[in-house]
């Protein structure tokens, strides 16, 4: 009992081969798409690697790039096979390797599906990397004179402005670190000495945020300093003021940015997987229809095509039996020798 049997005459075979050839070219372009998506994701991660403490994992974009290249290769090869299948002379040389190629395709489709799954799952490690990286980034904000960290201030400022966020979880994160460098603090002033004296680690902490946290949509000029002191500013209530600075934390903002990107890429890779499965089935039909010609000498004779020669269950048991016999093959030899030695 074959799976999904279809009868073919010459015209139908030609049409099938042409359609599958066309689909293979689409699949090659899909492979290019996967490759470029991996490249794009890699570049985006590199752009903000400073904010992730250079700790981010490039596993996913590298995998996407690799799968994209393999997709292109396999599909170009499959397309060539389809093109040759129209000419019986050329097709003969492909007949032998076609079965193993189809098995390879099935395995590859499984890997592609796993890649798509990874795109959705890698969000979780990214969350931890971002949390760590941003916390450290904020600590180095003031170190504009330390080589290796002198661009952290600019990177953080530009990121807060671009993603419309402030601090790690919210703007209060800036209250807990010293973000003004000692170079710009007048240690002779009473106010500075008081603040440093009142802090255990001798840090200059203030209830203020950098200018990049300011929200341009606010109706009043931005209030950055003495944010918790209602009397320091006219007509200002710290608890009800909503539009003054950005409300979101940068970790959430970046996570939703990268998460969105990964979701889109995952969805596209799923679609590519569906396309790959379709072309594999098409190639299987081409293969089976060309191997069951009623009269092998006459190219115009009828033939049948199928996906599996037996039912799914039987094919599965067949595969298991083949694997067992391959395993038993070595065992039987050993057992036979032992029997021989005991007999003799």
């Amino acid at each position, binding site marked *: 009992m074959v799976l999904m049997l279809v009868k073919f005459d010459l015209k139908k075979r030609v049409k099938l081969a042409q359609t599958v050839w066309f689909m293979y070219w689409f699949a090659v372009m899909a492979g290019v798409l996967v490759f470029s998506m991996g490249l794009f994701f890699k570049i985006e991660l590199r752009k903000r690697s400073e904010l992730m403490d250079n700790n981010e994992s490039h596993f996913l974009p590298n995998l996407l790039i690799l799968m994209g290249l393999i997709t292109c290769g396999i599909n170009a090869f499959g397309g060539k096979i389809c093109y040759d299948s129209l000419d019986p002379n050329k097709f003969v040389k492909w007949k032998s390797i076609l079965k193993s190629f189809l098995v390879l395709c099935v395995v590859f489709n499984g890997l592609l599906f796993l890649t798509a799954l990874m795109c959705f799952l890698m969000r979780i490690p990214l969350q931890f990397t971002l949390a760590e990286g941003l916390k450290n980034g904020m600590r180095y904000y003031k170190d504009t004179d330390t080589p290796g960290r002198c661009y952290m201030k600019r990177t953080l400022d530009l990121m807060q402005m671009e993603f419309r966020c402030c601090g790690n979880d919210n703007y209060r994160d800036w209250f807990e670190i010293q973000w003004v460098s000692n170079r710009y603090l007048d240690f002779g002033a009473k106010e500075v000495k008081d603040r440093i004296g009142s802090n255990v680690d001798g840090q200059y902490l203030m209830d203020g945020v950098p200018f990049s946290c300011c929200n*341009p949509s606010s109706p*009043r000029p931005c209030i950055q300093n003495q944010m918790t002191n209602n009397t320091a500013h006219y007509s200002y209530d710290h608890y009800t003021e909503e539009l003054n600075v950005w409300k979101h934390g940068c970790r959430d903002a970046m996570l939703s940015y990268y998460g969105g990107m990964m979701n889109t890429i995952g969805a596209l890779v799923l679609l590519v997987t569906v396309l790959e499965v379709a072309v594999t089935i098409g190639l299987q039909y081409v293969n089976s229809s060309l191997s069951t010609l009623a009269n092998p000498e006459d190219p115009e004779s009828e033939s049948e095509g199928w996906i599996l020669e037996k039912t799914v269950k039987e094919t599965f048991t067949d595969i298991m039996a083949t694997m067992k016999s391959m395993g038993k093959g070595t065992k039987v030899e050993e057992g036979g020798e032992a029997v021989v030695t005991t007999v003799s």
Partner: protein
Amino acid sequence: MLLKIKFTQQRRVRLAQGLWLLSWMAVMWGVIIFCLGVYLKTELLRRAEVMDNSEIHVVPNILMMVGLASIGTNWVASRACQDSLDATRFPRWKVFLLAWFAVAAVLCCLLIVVVVLSYALQGSLEESLKVGLRNGIRFYKDTDVPGRCFQKETIDRLQIEFRCCGNSNFKDWFEVQWVSNRYLDFTSKDVKDRIRSNVDGRYLLDGVPFSCCNPASPRPCLQLQLTDNSAHYNYDYQSEELNLYSRGCRQALTDYFMELMNSTGPGVLSVILIQLSVCLSLRYLQTAVEGAMALEDPEGDSEGFLLEKGVKETLEDLKANALKMLKFGQVDPNAAEGSSEAADAEKAEKTASPTPAS
């Protein structure tokens, strides 16, 4: 005959095929020019709030028009050369082609005009930006006045995006009150002093909004009391360079738009070249095919040329034709003399159009 070339049947076929491809390429370029025009127009419209007049919009308008016209014209050219190899269909194109050459010449002239205008209108753009930005800065504080409530956000986002401050530089902010009265405590001494010391009763500061801050500065941004060296530790107003953006927004926006228009320059020039080559090839094809149709053996050799007679003779011919057409309506020879001067002027226009490439 001007620049005549011999054409065999095969050469004619080759010419027709090559011209067909060339005209489709020209259609694509027309699409590109149209898209460039749309992009330029969108960018200008986005910043329309800080521009006072819309004179500069003539550049993208002409680009869009020329793009569309060039798509149509070159599509017609491709149909003409498809029909050129079919002796029954080609004769009806005779009158059309004359008009086609005129239209193609007008298109090339318009493209050159666009290039010239994009440089010439720079002054007008700067003036428009100067007035628009001045108003924007003046109305920055009016976030409660309907119609102006978005000026603050617009100016802030503009300064952040284009990395600029004020109209010519950051001192423009010292001359306007950019803090709304709603947020000023009129009972405090500092506010009362400042307002009294100003003739118009305005609250002026030597400070700028946060959007002028430069993220590349090594120290946290100093926005207020900018001219007072003693207000900030280790600060010298005259030598501090990176604290705020040093460019004015008028300069920044002008540079941005000029760059945009200059980058369309090569595209426009290549469209002119392609259009001219389509014109030339179509003229050769037309004359060669007509020559072949006049022979007894339509598949024989014929000659293609640009003009049947020399340039001077063609001009004189056209002059004579124009005069003849005008003389039909003239009764009085005295009136004829008076109107022949007008006819001369018209002739000059007419001779310019049908000779596109010579």
